[in-house]
């Protein structure tokens, strides 16, 4: 058999095969419905992927921000320091330097009572502190470590009795401080707030 004969036979075979195919119905509807379903599936998958990517980005940003910003470690108990929720420079000698007036002190109710001296605390850039309990001059040294770790020494001072403001008790018990532009807070070893001061000037 020559190639031409075989080719002619092939044409005839394909034509007969094609002619035997029954009429397909609803091709348009099936194609458009299938395409729309596939498109919806693509949108759903794309949407889910976008949400997943956004979630990962948000979590990643949060974790990254937590590492790079000077946020304080969480503190148990009442009166969580405001510095833990706002971005502030880490406590340092520079940020605490100045004069501070007590506005809140654990167990002390008469901070606003009239006293012979102004009961303030003064932190100096050279690592010393001074002040008054209302009727006695106070002095000592202090250090501020990483993440607001705080330690102070109390120097010799008179013990004239009056309605003394117990700065020394606060400074002795304080293990950590938090500072923002107008507030200085002291926290004990258990994380509870010991005292809160505002900047006097």
């Amino acid at each position, binding site marked *: *058999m020559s*190639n031409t004969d*075989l*080719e002619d*036979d*092939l*044409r005839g*075979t*394909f*034509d*007969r*095969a*094609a002619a*035997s*195919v*029954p*009429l*397909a119905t609803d*091709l*348009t509807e*099936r*194609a*458009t419905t*299938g*395409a729309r379903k*596939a*498109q919806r599936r693509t949108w759903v998958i794309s949407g889910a992927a976008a949400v997943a990517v956004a979630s990962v980005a948000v979590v990643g940003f949060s974790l990254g921000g937590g590492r790079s910003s000077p946020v304080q470690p969480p503190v148990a108990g009442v009166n969580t320091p405001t510095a833990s929720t706002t971005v502030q420079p880490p406590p340092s000698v520079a940020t605490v330097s100045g004069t501070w007036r007590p506005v809140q002190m654990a167990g002390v109710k008469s901070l606003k009572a009239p006293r012979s001296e102004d009961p303030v605390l003064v932190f100096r850039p050279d690592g010393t502190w001074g002040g008054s309990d209302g009727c006695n001059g106070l002095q000592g040294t202090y250090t501020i470590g990483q993440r607001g770790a705080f330690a102070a020494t109390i120097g010799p001072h008179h013990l004239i009795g009056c309605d003394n403001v117990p700065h020394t008790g606060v400074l002795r018990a304080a293990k950590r401080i938090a500072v923002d532009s107008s507030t200085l807070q002291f926290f004990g070893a258990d994380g509870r707030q010991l005292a809160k001061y505002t900047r006097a000037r």
Partner: protein
Amino acid sequence: MEFEEYVAARGQDLVRLGFTVSGDYQRAEDLAQIALMQAFRSWRKVRKADDPHLYVRRILINAYLSMTRRRSFTESPSAEIDPRSTVPDHATDIVNSDDLWRALAELSARERVVLVLRYYQDLDDRTIADVLGIKPSSVRATVSRALATLRKTRRSYRVDERLS
């Protein structure tokens, strides 16, 4: 031309093309549907083509060749088939009456596609090469090899028939 107009005019041709390449009516409808779905999704692009029907046929042929490369293509379904939903197997009649149709089953998918495009669709070698993404010389070589296989297989069928 709108998509609906195209399907009305050419949809059945696509099913026929699917049947000649696959030899299976059910698969032929699937191939036509796949090709039309893809064409529908980018119909603006398809309708701007020089020959939209060639564009859609290319989709169908490539869908078939992709299908044959899958492992599942040669696997037999094991599920029970509802006889009420089956379609008549027109290939059975052709197989019984045409030894050449039987011999076509011995070819590779690409060889059979090349023969269909050349002898059923009457496309020239350059167009076939374009559809398949190969060189025209490869088309000619494939045709030559496929015809030789067909001639040999057909001869053996006839010998078998005479002996039986």
